[in-house]
């Protein structure tokens, strides 16, 4: 297996667009990918939250990846796909099915499997599990640690975080290249400490606010970047490449400050129901066909209106802009 270094920077947590018939909205997905990819270092498909991955069966994820590949083939950035299912066997089956898509499509770009191991497995024996998985799945892994997500399970495990000692063992596997992390700052420090012997091991902020407040040097998984990829790109550049902005001076700091406020305000609005609000906005912008989600949400019209007003103010909302950025 060719080993990759996990990307550093902006990973866009892509919404999963559906047609009225419930299939994957391929054209919509490609428009969205074409809109965000030039500004990102990776895209994340079928993520458990924004990508509604919890509700996507293997066939859906296969279809999603198949629809994404034509668009992504033109961008030199990796695809991340969430492969976790309710149990170990299904997760493995999904991963192997997705691997089949790559092989069938002859996709030459970089790809990482994202797995939330505590969703279906306890800490005990995790290193052995991944030793076995890595030998068959053909692509490197990025792990996902999200205690709130695990707490929401109907049969929660005793521990909702990957134990630091277990992580230390896991990173001895070179196929495990990064971790999307949500949780406390203290745990983040412990994880970083555990991973120091792997200089290129990435620990991404899984929560946008964490990154906006105290940016990690690996990057962030952002759902807001579905709507405002350019603004996120600027924030990422500012946060990760601190010396590269001299050309923006003298008002660089003001620009960044305003953009930071914009992204925070945006987040405050869509936090109520991120996926439907993002989908409705993208649908209104003409990027995706419908705002259909896999589950029902409360009325989000007010939030959507506020978001639209905010995005217009920052030049991120416009059907023309979204249409001209399409390539399909």
């Amino acid at each position, binding site marked *: 297996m060719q080993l990759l270094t996990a990307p550093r920077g902006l990973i866009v947590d892509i919404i999963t667009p559906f047609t009225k018939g419930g299939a994957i909205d391929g054209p919509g997905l490609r428009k969205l990918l074409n809109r965000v990819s030039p500004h990102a270092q990776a895209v994340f498909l079928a993520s458990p939250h924004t990508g509604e991955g919890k509700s996507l069966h293997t066939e859906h994820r296969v279809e999603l990846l198949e629809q994404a590949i034509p668009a992504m083939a033109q961008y030199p950035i990796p695809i991340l796909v969430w492969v976790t299912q309710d149990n170990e066997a299904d997760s493995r089956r999904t991963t192997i099915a997705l691997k089949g898509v790559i092989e069938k499509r002859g996709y030459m770009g970089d790809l990482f499997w994202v797995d939330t191991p505590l969703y279906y497995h306890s800490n005990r024996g995790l290193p052995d599990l991944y030793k076995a998985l890595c030998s068959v799945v053909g692509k490197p892994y990025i792990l996902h640690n999200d205690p709130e997500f695990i707490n929401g399970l109907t049969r929660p495990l005793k521990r909702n975080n990957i134990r630091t000692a277990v992580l230390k063992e896991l990173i001895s596997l070179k196929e495990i290249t990064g971790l999307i992390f949500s949780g406390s*700052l*203290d745990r*983040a*420090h412990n994880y*970083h*400490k555990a991973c*120091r012997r792997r*200089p*290129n091991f990435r*620990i991404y902020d899984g929560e946008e606010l964490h990154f*906006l*407040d*105290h*940016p*990690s*040097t690996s990057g962030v998984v952002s759902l807001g970047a579905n709507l405002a990829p350019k603004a996120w790109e600027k*924030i990422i*550049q*500012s*946060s*990760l*490449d*601190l*010396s*590269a902005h001299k050309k923006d001076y003298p008002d660089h*700091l003001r620009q*960044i*400050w305003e*953009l*930071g406020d914009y992204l925070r305000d945006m987040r405050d609005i869509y936090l109520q129901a991120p996926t439907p609000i993002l989908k409705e906005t993208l649908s209104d912008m003409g990027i995706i066909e419908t705002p259909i989600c896999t589950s029902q949400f409360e009325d989000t019209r007010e939030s959507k209106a506020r978001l639209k007003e905010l995005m217009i103010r920052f030049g991120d909302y416009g059907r023309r802009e979204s249409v001209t950025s399409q390539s399909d």
Partner: protein
Amino acid sequence: MIIEQAKNVLTIEAQSILGLIERIGPEFEKAVETILKAKGRVILTGMGKSGLVARKISATLNSTGTSSLFLHPAEAIHGDLGMATPDDVILAISSSGHTSEINRILPILKNMGAKIILFTGGLDSPMADISNIVIDVGVEREACPLGLAPTASTTAALAMGDALAVVLLNQRRFNKDDFRRFHPGGSLGERLAFKVKEVMLTDDHIPTVPLGSKVGQAIEEINEKKIGATLITGKDQRLEGIISDGDLRRALINKENIYEMKVEEIMSLSPRTIDEDETSAEALGLMELHAITHLVVVDEQRRVKGVLHLHDLLGREGFIPNAAINSATRTHS
């Protein structure tokens, strides 16, 4: 909320330094050896906040015995590169390793023959590729939101600079005298920069009794002038000897009724002397060398010009140098 935010910032910054501990290794040792072997100076360079950190590290190196200067990368390409020589060691600081101004000058410096040490978090950057020694000062996250200013990364670089300076200091066996030499602006250094004539006791403040005086008279003089000794002078105020508290103690043990004895019977015949134009640092060195607390200041004919007590060098409360008060009255307690 305010306290919580402040705690978060301090935690992140503290972690940025703690994270360096495990990464100190052979590269750091190589950096120390390279600097110790270098015939030239350590030239620090960095842009923006890293430049400020570089300036501080340069100052610390200078204070601790490693000759150093700061080279601004932007000025370097407009002529300042001329200050570098093949014997110098370049210490560049760049958080990302992509700072274009530094990337422009490092190849030139390397071609010149200078060794390049890099402090960076960008271990796979072009700057790291060209450097001879790369020291990882990367941090897991910045404390400042939105990358408005580097915070944890500059803290880490600064701390690593301190580590380098202190290790170099220890390796060079930098001692107190060296410290004095390099700290003329410090509180102690300031005093030690004075000439002896500026800090010595003069005129009526010099405890002195003539040859032939009784020891009782010498004791009264010691008691009055309160510096623990009196000079014994001959014709034209020439220095003949000194009686210190120690001489008196020894005389009391060995002899009876010392009050009636002549001073020449118990005085030390060869008191240590110094010229009035020597520095206080030199005077302190002599006192340390001979384990004494007094020096007599004499001219070429051994005529007494003043006397210097250790306390005058180390600083008494309310100390004002003679240069300022021009032999005004001082009270020693």
